[in-house]
């Protein structure tokens, strides 16, 4: 076991801290607590900045465009990244966190060469077409159909809850290619150009009043056969692997660290009976409780992460990180609103209040989705019980 840093590692830690301090744009940092609504343009810009620095993919080898960091360096990097207030990027999570390992495992050489470099550089933005109105938790019930006609799939149907569908260049999606057997057996995994004719997009308004996700309708959309990943009708297994990657990516490590710091700052600024609220014994105890839980989770996250090789599936362990991470993040943002007291009711960003209030309330609302998207906490707990603990299924 090892937790302390060598001198080289300490120098690297300082370098990371300094670079992010100097290079993270304020407009991005301000949006971190409300992370999942970060403006797509800002995301791409930040993605490209990181790419140019060589830091977009800490765990990938340098020849792929990654940073080729050691495990300890990855930890130092991710920790410093998070504390700087820079947000997790959806552009990165979907393409590098989920699709790239998947293509490395299941894709053709041609697919790997064609798609991965542009994902790493941020030139292409991806979205994920899995859920349907009647196929949410019960994803295998999906009905969007793809029929093979010659060298093309003809896709018809509807997907929903898709982040940045109105911005992305490409979508990876699950389609039904066979309805005759068990519902898990006739599913395939396709890569679809979002500019294809026949695609219609409708943005959905969230509780934040933003439109962070869309419905996408497919009307005889033609997809070249070479954009099939893996074998036909074997997409369910691929999706399972990808969902594990998603769960690991869904773990809000950056938001958590930044949010704890934010609570602390807000409680320092807030006056309560003539003193900073941070000196109130009751508030201190609440904050310390969350710090202990955050640290416990942080060490667990890095323990699991360090056991992963690039491209390997995270396994069901990712489920419990997502459960606890989401719920803990909600608790931290609850306390963040408690810190600002009566300001917790505010919504619109008026100058009088400063950005911290808007960020706190918006982030709080946003955090409600963390325990439902990518598989609800209920589904995840069932996965933990049946796949980790091997409790009997129904």
């Amino acid at each position, binding site marked *: 076991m090892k937790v302390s840093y060598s001198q080289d590692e300490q120098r690297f830690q300082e370098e990371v801290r300094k670079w992010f301090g100097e290079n993270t744009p304020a407009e991005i940092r301000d949006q971190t607590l409300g992370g999942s609504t970060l403006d797509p343009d800002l995301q791409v810009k930040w993605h490209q900045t990181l790419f140019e620095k060589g830091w977009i993919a800490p765990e990938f080898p340098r020849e792929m465009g990654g940073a080729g960091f050691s495990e300890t360096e990855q930890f130092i990097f991710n920790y410093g990244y998070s504390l700087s207030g820079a947000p997790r990027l959806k552009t990165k999570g979907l393409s590098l966190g989920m699709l790239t390992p998947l293509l490395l495992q299941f894709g053709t050489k041609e697919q790997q060469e064609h798609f991965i470099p542009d994902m790493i550089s941020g030139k292409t933005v991806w979205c994920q077409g899995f*859920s349907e109105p*009647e196929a*949410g*938790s*019960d994803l295998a*019930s999906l009905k969007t159909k793809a029929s093979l006609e010659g060298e093309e799939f003809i896709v018809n149907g509807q997907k*929903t*809850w898709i982040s940045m569908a109105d911005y992305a260049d490409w979508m990876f999606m699950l389609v039904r290619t066979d309805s005759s057997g068990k519902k898990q057996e006739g599913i395939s995994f396709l890569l679809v150009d979002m500019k294809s004719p026949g695609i219609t997009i409708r943005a*959905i*308004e*969230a*509780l934040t*009043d933003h439109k962070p996700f869309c419905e996408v309708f497919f009307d005889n959309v033609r997809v070249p056969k070479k954009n099939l990943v893996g074998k036909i009708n074997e997409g369910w297994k691929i999706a399972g692997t990808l969902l594990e990657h998603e769960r690991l990516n869904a773990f809000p490590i950056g938001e958590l660290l930044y949010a704890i710091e934010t609570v602390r700052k807000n409680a320092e600024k*807030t*006056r*309560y*009976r*003539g003193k900073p*609220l941070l000196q109130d014994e*009751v508030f201190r105890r609440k904050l310390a409780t969350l710090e202990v839980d955050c640290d416990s989770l942080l060490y667990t996250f890095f323990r699991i992460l360090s056991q992963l090789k690039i491209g390997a599936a995270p396994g069901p362990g990712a489920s419990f990180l997502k459960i606890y991470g989401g719920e803990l993040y*909600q608790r931290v943002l609850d306390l963040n*609103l*408690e810190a600002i*007291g*009566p300001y*917790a*009711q*505010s*919504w*619109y960003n*008026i100058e*009088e*209040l400063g950005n911290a209030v808007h960020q706190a*309330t918006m982030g*709080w*609302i946003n955090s*409600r*989705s963390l*325990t*439902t*998207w990518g598989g*609800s*906490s*209920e589904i995840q*707990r*069932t996965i933990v019980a049946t796949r980790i603990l091997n409790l009997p299924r129904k």
Partner: protein
Amino acid sequence: MDFELTSEHLLFRESVASFVKKEHSFNRLRALKDDPWGYSKDVWKKMAELGWMGLIYPEEYGGLGLDFTFVMVLLEEFGRGLLPEPWISTVLLGGNLVLAGGMEAQKEEIIPAIVAGDLFVTAAYLEDGGRYDLNFCATSARQKNGGFSLSGRKIFVLDGCSADRFIVTARTSGATSDTDGLTLFIIPRGASGVEITPLKTMDGRNTCILDLKDVSVSESDIVGKKDSGYPLLADIIDQATTGVCAEMVGGMDASLEMTVRYLSERVQFGKPIGSFQALQHKAADMFIQKELASSVVCYAVASIDEKTEERTLAVSTAKAKCSSAYPEVTKTAIQLFGAMGFTNEADIGFFLKRAKVTEVLFGDADHHLARVAAMKGY
């Protein structure tokens, strides 16, 4: 101990419920979201015509003189539908302060106008740095030209963007956190030196920042006694707190009802998701919290009606419970609605936001728990 409602209360509940159903909808809330007032004067006037502004006011001022249990019934129904009209600020805060502490002339001018639906009044007492403490008041009232000159800033003034009159706390003596030395003044909206900055809350209602810069008022604008505004304000805030608790109970009830319906209708894995045990148990917990909150609010209402010595304790107990239960119930509801619950297309989100606003209105759970501890003698 008896929590049964009379047939009059039950009949009144029916009429309020049918009014809310007829005049109000969640789509109306969507339409009012960016409205500066967040409610409509038309609906307000209709409510006035039914006599609801004067529900608890004495008959001599045009009121119906009914008990506080009617307030509970009214506000539970408002809470079920999330009716945004400013009944709590105008009737329970503004009008009630005048009625309890005002001079006869003030009462005669203000109460009948409220009853008629022609006047919006509110109270402005919260300040930056005071959190929820009513005694925290840096706004000063200096004697000047035989009257007073008021300067200071109030925040989150309930329905302040649409109020015609503000009843404002200002310090005529003592230090910022003293309980003594507070005086209540009536200030008209248009008074010189009054500046209003809108501050919409997350549920789309209006509050404001009220800046006072050398606002001149006279002795006759004082409500109650000089230097002794605190007990008057505290007592009226207790009543308004109880009112908002009743609204919260109504909101919990509606949230639960909507959630149970969704769970019964939404099908996944070939059956309604409400047949899954883990979701059933969450719904059961929502029910339990709602029942507990409902009982303790009944207790607070009856304590106010009977003016018992324990009423302040009962109010803080009720608000502490509601301020923890309503957010919990609505968060669970959002969770059970899944992705749909996170959209503005579903109605359930309105309750999450209202829960957060009412959680802090008149003090959050911790504020009231500290009061409970003190009143229980430790």
